[in-house]
């Protein structure tokens, strides 16, 4: 059986998205900046896509900038807020310890420039509270950036409440909604979001395409210099085919959020219940306030990469936060941020299901993971030490 359970990494493109792209490669291939007919047809399609994308997010078309994806949008949003803050002598930014590296590394860069960065604790449940955000805001705070849903443990943050706190304090609020867009209801106006990043390939659109929403009045700083595309804020000939594919995928995803959520939650909960039966394992992140697609577990006594390889042998595609899978020496900063010790974080498994996942596949995953964990524990000296009491268990059972 082949089971793709890594939809948080990327998704298969939908037929709708592919079909929306093809005409802009084959027939309407003109440059939107050209004045002749196929150029202007492309321009019209681009502006039409902007309107449709704006409707999905609850903003106006002018507030949408098409980018290359989540990392670019995150970087541009943060840099723009920082430069605006700097002018007013505000050089303090609030974020969380478990943001995506596109956010954390941009903040690191600003820190080197003299900005002060406060990374809020996300607690063992992987959720930051609006009260903590409020308490961290200072006179010189120029930006709060908190992800909508975490990419590893899937926890959904109280974005509307954090937005309200920031709005009341007059501080810009950005959210990295890469994992949430198309999966969770988003309305930037109702949620008091000033800036938002999303990426097309997380909701069955093409890779290398995304959106930065920035509320009217926010001045964006260029990351790229060039022509007048995207009001001069994101120069370079527009990636029309991808923008068309992304917009079609976003509309499709947003239209089916309730239906997909209703289908996924029972499947997700079945998977969580099944994996919880494995001794000395624990779910990472809050059980309730999490993406309908996300399941993330730690298993004591084993290492994640070997788990992934053996699951791959059984046709299951998944991911892990172990150091060995990241190519670095430390396990996932997200798992460390929710308080998992290193030795447990190395034994993590993320499964992210999709609307096409079946109950049969869920049961196959449960059976496979249970067997593979047992197989790896049988050869693990670390597990033997836990069983014989030479080392202490982290989990209760």
């Amino acid at each position, binding site marked *: 059986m082949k089971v793709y359970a890594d939809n948080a990494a990327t998704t298969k493109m939908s037929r709708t998205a592919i079909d929306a792209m093809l005409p802009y490669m084959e027939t309407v291939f003109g440059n939107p900046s050209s004045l002749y007919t196929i150029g202007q047809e492309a321009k019209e399609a681009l502006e039409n896509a902007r309107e449709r994308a704006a409707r999905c997010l609850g903003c106006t078309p002018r507030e949408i900038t098409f980018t290359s994806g989540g990392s670019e949008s995150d970087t541009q949003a943060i840099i723009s807020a920082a430069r605006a803050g700097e002018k007013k002598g505000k050089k303090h930014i609030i974020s969380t310890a478990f943001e995506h590296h596109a956010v954390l590394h941009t903040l690191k860069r600003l820190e080197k420039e003299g900005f002060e960065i406060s990374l809020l604790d996300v607690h063992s449940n992987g959720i930051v509270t609006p009260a903590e955000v409020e308490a961290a805001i200072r006179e010189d705070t120029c930006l709060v950036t908190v992800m909508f849903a975490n990419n590893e443990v899937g926890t959904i943050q109280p974005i509307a409440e954090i937005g309200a706190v920031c709005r009341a304090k007059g501080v810009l609020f950005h959210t990295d909604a890469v994992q949430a867009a198309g999966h969770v209801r988003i309305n930037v106006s109702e949620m008091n979001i000033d800036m938002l990043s999303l990426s097309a390939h997380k909701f069955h659109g093409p890779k290398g395409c995304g959106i930065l929403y920035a509320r009217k009045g926010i001045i964006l700083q260029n990351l790229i210099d060039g022509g007048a595309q995207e009001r001069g804020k994101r120069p370079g000939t527009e990636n029309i085919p991808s923008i068309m594919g992304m917009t079609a995928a976003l509309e499709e995803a947003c239209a089916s959020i309730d239906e997909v959520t209703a289908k996924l939650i029972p499947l997700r909960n079945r998977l969580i219940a099944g994996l919880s039966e494995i001794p000395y394992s624990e779910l990472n992140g809050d059980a309730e306030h999490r993406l309908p697609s996300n399941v993330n577990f730690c298993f004591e006594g084993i290492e994640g990469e070997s788990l992934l390889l053996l699951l791959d042998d059984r046709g299951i595609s998944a991911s892990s936060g172990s150091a060995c899978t990241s190519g670095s020496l430390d396990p996932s900063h997200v798992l460390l941020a929710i308080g998992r010790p*290193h030795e447990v974080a190395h034994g993590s498994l993320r499964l992210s299901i999709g609307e096409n996942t079946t109950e049969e596949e869920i049961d196959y995953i449960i059976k496979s993971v249970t067997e593979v964990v047992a197989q790896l524990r049988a050869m693990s000296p670390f597990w033997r030490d836990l069983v014989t009491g030479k080392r202490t268990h982290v989990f209760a059972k």
Partner: protein
Amino acid sequence: MALYSEKVMDHFRNPRNVGIIENADGVGEAGNPVCGDIMKIYLKIDNDVITDVKFETFGCGSAIASSSMATELIKGQPRAEALKLTNKAVTEALDGLPAHKLHCSVLAEEAIKLAVKDYYDKNHIEYDHSLLPEESGCAHCHCD
């Protein structure tokens, strides 16, 4: 291209000499759980020959494959040969490892040497201390 060579995958999927030896003549353990890999080697030594060797490994695919290959390389060999085992020999026998996985082969070498050292210590045999690690130094990573 796949992450690992066919040989690494073969030794990972079908590890040789997995298990423990009760009353082993020498036991060596390298690595630690914080770093995400531990290798434990058990030796049976008769007349200065390694008559049996078993291993247990907690770690990634290349750690399991490295331990498996290392045990194959020393099984049935004179004890002196085991001491000459290098991480390079383990890596070459596996048709190479990705650069960031080379420390797995270092751990295998270290675990075997610690097992031989344990044998010496148990039997009060004098040896050149400069040739053997005192304990798993974890020098391959920077966790200590």
